[in-house]
């Protein structure tokens, strides 16, 4: 069984970017810039802020339907953020504008082609020089199924997770379908590639079969990290089998410990929290109440809602870290307010406690997460003894870079 990296005194931190923030009224807050949600500049500035805070990665939420409060389909509301851009394209658009931070777009496995997803994420890894990750999710929504018209709506959740597991398996096999260094450019023999180092993946499953190899060479990280969230234990088998980064939503330290124990093979188990951060606890509470009043309802979430100071949040994160979580994906209640509170309040607090990096110490997302450059399954099977390419070597070599 794969073993998690030995407990580190440092926590890993990611931020979930979605619309104007996770509170439904976030877009109405000062500085929320909601009219610019569909511009590149909006996303570039959020990523720059997260990178200034030395975060491991940002995620970009996505869905194949309009956001809704109704799981069955659009709720007809006009008072909430509706509409979003394709997450992979947003990540690619900001990649050349950032240098260190991981970029992890969400992809819905239920309605997409693993071949397309594999080459898109491999390419994101190229354009970001090794900073891509894949956040995979399933869709149970009938309206999204209706956008594709290929399958009956819904389906049982175990089936959807099973399909997603196959999806991830195919994506990873395609990433491995080119060995590192397969491009030889051998002028003497006229061969551009060594075809012995390209591999058919020959995946056959109940939902799809894929021949391979990928059209895109193995990405710089080899296998970009795959992240997935399960808000309850029903999704844990999927996380255990498919995710490098298993995301869970415990409500307290005991639940955090239980989640970490339930996922012993996952290289990382991240806890998720929605956060409202201010210098005084009562300010954070009051702000949350003000947002709830604007929205007309109390905010609820699958994740723990934290309203307080960065110091109190640091206490909680380190307690959960001690319970076995290796990192956290924070969902800022209001991006315009709570993202800077994370980067300029929480991060320095964690640094003071020796629990967070003071500069980026690796050039790739795998490197930031302490994951080795992965061996290629086909190279191992074929015993071809691949020479590691420059990109591959760079992916695992720690690089000293200024913060």
């Amino acid at each position: 069984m794969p073993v998690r990296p030995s407990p580190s005194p440092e926590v890993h931190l990611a931020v979930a970017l979605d619309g104007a923030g996770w509170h439904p009224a976030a877009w109405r807050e000062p500085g929320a810039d909601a009219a610019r949600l569909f511009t590149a500049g909006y996303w570039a500035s959020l990523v720059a802020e997260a990178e200034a805070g030395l975060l491991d990665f940002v995620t970009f939420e996505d869905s194949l339907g309009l956001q809704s409060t109704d799981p069955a389909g659009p709720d007809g509301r006009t008072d909430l953020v509706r509409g979003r851009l394709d997450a992979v394209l947003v990540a690619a658009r900001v990649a050349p504008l950032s240098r260190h931070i991981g970029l992890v777009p969400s992809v819905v496995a239920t309605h997409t082609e693993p071949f397309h997803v594999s080459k898109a994420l491999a390419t994101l890894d190229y354009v970001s020089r090794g900073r891509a990750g894949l956040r995979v999710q399933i869709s149970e929504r009938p309206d999204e199924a209706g956008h594709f018209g290929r399958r009956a709506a819904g389906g049982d959740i175990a089936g959807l997770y099973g399909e997603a597991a196959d999806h991830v398996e195919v994506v990873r096999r395609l990433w491995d379908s080119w060995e590192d260094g397969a491009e030889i450019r051998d002028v003497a023999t006229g061969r551009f590639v060594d075809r012995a180092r390209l591999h058919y993946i020959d995946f056959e499953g109940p939902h799809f079969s894929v021949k391979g190899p990928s059209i895109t060479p193995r990405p710089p990280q080899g296998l970009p990290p795959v992240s997935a969230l399960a808000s309850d234990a029903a999704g844990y088998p999927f996380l255990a089998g498919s995710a490098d980064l298993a995301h869970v939503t415990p409500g307290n330290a005991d639940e955090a410990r239980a989640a970490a124990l339930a996922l012993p093979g996952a290289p990382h188990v991240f806890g998720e929290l929605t956060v409202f951060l201010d210098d005084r606890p009562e300010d954070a509470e009051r702000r949350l109440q003000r947002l709830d009043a604007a929205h007309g309802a109390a905010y609820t979430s699958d994740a723990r809602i934290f309203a307080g100071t960065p110091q109190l949040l640091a206490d909680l994160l380190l307690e959960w870290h001690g319970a076995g979580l290796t990192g956290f994906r924070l969902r800022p209640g209001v991006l315009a307010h709570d993202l800077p509170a994370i980067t300029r309040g929480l991060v320095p607090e964690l640094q003071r406690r020796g629990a967070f990096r003071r500069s980026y110490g690796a050039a790739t997302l795998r490197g930031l997460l302490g994951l080795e450059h992965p061996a290629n399954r086909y190279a191992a099977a074929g015993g071809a003894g691949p020479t590691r390419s420059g990109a591959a070597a760079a992916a695992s070599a720690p690089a000293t870079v200024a913060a």
Partner: protein
Amino acid sequence: MSKPLKQIHLAAHFPGVNNTTVWSDPAAGSHIEFDSFAHFARTAERAKFDFLFLAEGLRLREQGGEIYDLDVVGRPDTFTVLAALAAVTTHLGLTGTINSTFNEPYEVARQFASLDHLSDGRAAWNVVTSWDAFTGENFRRGGFLPREQRYERAREFLATAHELFDSWDGGELLADPVSGEFLRDARAGAFAHRGEQFDISGHFNVPRSPQGRPVVFQAGDSDEGREFAAAGADAIFGRYGTLDAGRAFYADVKGRLAKYGRTPDELKILPAATFVLGDTDDEARELAHEVRLKQVSGATAIKYLEHVWNRDLSGYDPDGPLPDVDPVPGENTVAQGRASVRTHRDPADVAREWRELAGARGLSIRELVIETTGRQTFVGSPLTVARAIDGLVQADAADGFILVPHLTPGGLDAFADTVVPLLQERGVFRREYTGPTLRDHLGLAAPRALAPAHH
């Protein structure tokens, strides 16, 4: 009074997986690393080109049951590269080939609408079709689309995507924090398409993009392809860069527009063209010959001949005479994943013509392939090339050209530095971009919304 000078449209195709790309040249760089794409795009933008074009592949080519290894193999994902290029350019149009067979309209429409937002109105879509089971083996839907259905699916795919783009009319997004109205209209994005190929309905979740919808390109020379382009494309990748063939194609395609209520200006005809520049015409010709020898090695010539002969010819000497055996008739089973294989005329006729040509001129296999596979090229000094391009455009053989250099990524540099200034001096090519969007560069009007207005 003489006719006013036509303005030339120029685009750059990032070279890739074919034997025109000279990967063995010491100046050849990566065709995968982003730096190559960024260099190429910045050069095209420096030269004020209309757009950059990326082709697509969905399965590695094979020949004789093995992955073809003599040309550049592999390429990055089209959408992802174009989105990243939007960050390092400000005006250049970003055109990508996206297949309508192994994709679904909702997802592709989302991706193009997103790209158009993220590039501030510079997205374009080259719609292509495929029917082959070979490519289908990589996808959920599998391989089998009857050949006769490919334009049917493409036509309905494009129409469906347009319905999705038009499901937002552009006035819905209010985002007024004071009133609390994010949308003006809860019906934003509502669509329902019921057709033979697609039966889908719901809500499109990307608001109307800067260009309304991406510019649409189409490639193809068949009667169906020409008609498809005339009916709805903004530009067609022409196949003919010579005067007579170009004028005939140009007249035919432009002549088809009227029945769709369109004017000739609404469809640009842009053939692909390679080029080799030298200080003098003689020098360029010599260089062009060297390039051809690098492009067509002996091994490449034999492989190329197999496309026509549809059989293993590995025992033949590329420096010897053409095979005396006949091509294998029927579906090509030797080469897979190549469009060119499918567009050949009757192989028996081609073989007969080639034998006659080789016999009359004493050509070896390799010399014959070099002779017959050269695409339209502009070869000469910058002035010669500028005159040739301008001449073809003014004579209505084309509206411009999509230039395909033989080197990655620096192959466009000399053209930008030497030919473009000469075209500008002649008053036939822009000195500055006159608008921010690709539609502006191509002189295309904003698209008419197809859907009824919501309010």
